[in-house]
């Protein structure tokens, strides 16, 4: 039972439990940045690292390389290296980039991780079948916070 509860939290499905969660459609962007925490709970950097480097989660590693996760095999080279991201950007900007990078980088290839609609032919994950109804965001509010917390630890030396 405990295990199931944890899974639900990770998936962001426990709507009632979240304190002040901001729904994807209610996110306020300012110059591409998001000031307010999406979950109301501080991010966990260690968890964020896992999300960033796991294919079935954030899968940032598919497009971004980083010395910081050199232990993970096969880094993509589509986007910039993530080392130093925590020095280059404010927390609010990183939250905006992860939630919807297109708000800062117009037309960027980077997917929006906290968005649920506005897609062309949205599919049901990787099945190739049509999605039924609104999709859950690629990452939950807390997962975005975790990834942001991780990025904040990637400082220039």
């Amino acid at each position: 039972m405990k295990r199931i509860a944890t899974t639900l939290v990770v998936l962001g499905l426990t709507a009632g439990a979240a304190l002040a969660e901001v729904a994807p459609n209610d996110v306020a962007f300012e110059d591409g940045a998001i000031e307010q925490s999406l979950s109301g709970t501080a991010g966990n950097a260690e968890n964020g690292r896992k999300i960033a480097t796991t294919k079935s989660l954030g899968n940032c590693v598919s497009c971004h390389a980083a010395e910081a996760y050199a232990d993970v095999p096969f880094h993509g080279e589509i986007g910039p290296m993530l080392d130093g991201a925590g020095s280059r950007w404010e927390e609010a900007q990183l939250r905006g980039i992860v939630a919807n990078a297109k708000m800062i980088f117009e037309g960027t290839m980077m997917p929006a991780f906290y968005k649920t609609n506005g897609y062309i032919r949205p599919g049901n994950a990787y099945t190739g079948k049509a999605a039924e109804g609104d999709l859950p965001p690629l990452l939950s509010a807390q997962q975005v916070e975790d990834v942001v917390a991780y990025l904040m630890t990637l400082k220039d030396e």
Partner: protein
Amino acid sequence: AFAFAAPVLADEDAELIVNGDLSIVTKTAAPAHLSDSLDEILSGWRFRNDDTQVMQMDDFDNPGMLGADVGLDQFAAVMGSEGKSCADCHDGPESLSTVRATYPKWNEAAGEVRTMQMQINDCLTNQMGAEAEKYDSAKMLNFEAMLAVAARGTPVNVAIDGPAQSVWETGKELYYTRFGQLELSCANCHEDNYGNMIRADHLSQGQVNGFPTYRLKNAKLNGIQSRFKGCVRDTRAETFNPGSPEFIALELYVASRGNGLSVEGPSVRN
């Protein structure tokens, strides 16, 4: 420098010569219609690792050639209620040596753009009284492999003007549409990022001059539109199906992006 594990990389400067004597153009100037986006076009062969490249340099090492051989047997076999084989009407695959380089192609009588498979199905059903083959069935891909060998080394030269133009425009629009929850277009990966790694995959230009391709991953011949389906699915989108009007249009458009490369199928890919 990168400390982490990287896959063995391709030799993008290698030249493809098959069986020691057939030169294949795997890199050339982009066709005029691409002048706004690409200077040169490259076959997917250039992006594969050394071992995979070598397999395609000798027909004895190329597992896709087995399919082409079966295609030859199929060509001579009687099929359907009319008691005919392909060979009854066509003088061997050599007589069809312009097909692979010029399809998809407008068919005046039918008033439609036809892929090779549509044309072969037309012959199967209307000329031979046989059952239509499913899109990208093993049998179809064997026929395609045989026709690719007959055309190997000749430049892809798909017509994009005249009555095919509106279909081509549709294909072009699809190519630049950002599908699925990941909002990715073909161009995001194959035009803006060819040569880059996406995780462990080395992105090519997504050309179709090498089809059908024998993929080491699934150990069989693979069709163009099934490959499209896989790529669209990977954007977390609802895909189109092989044989759909959308994929026929997309095949015409993508094939035209390879105008000038040699037909090189059956190719070997990972």
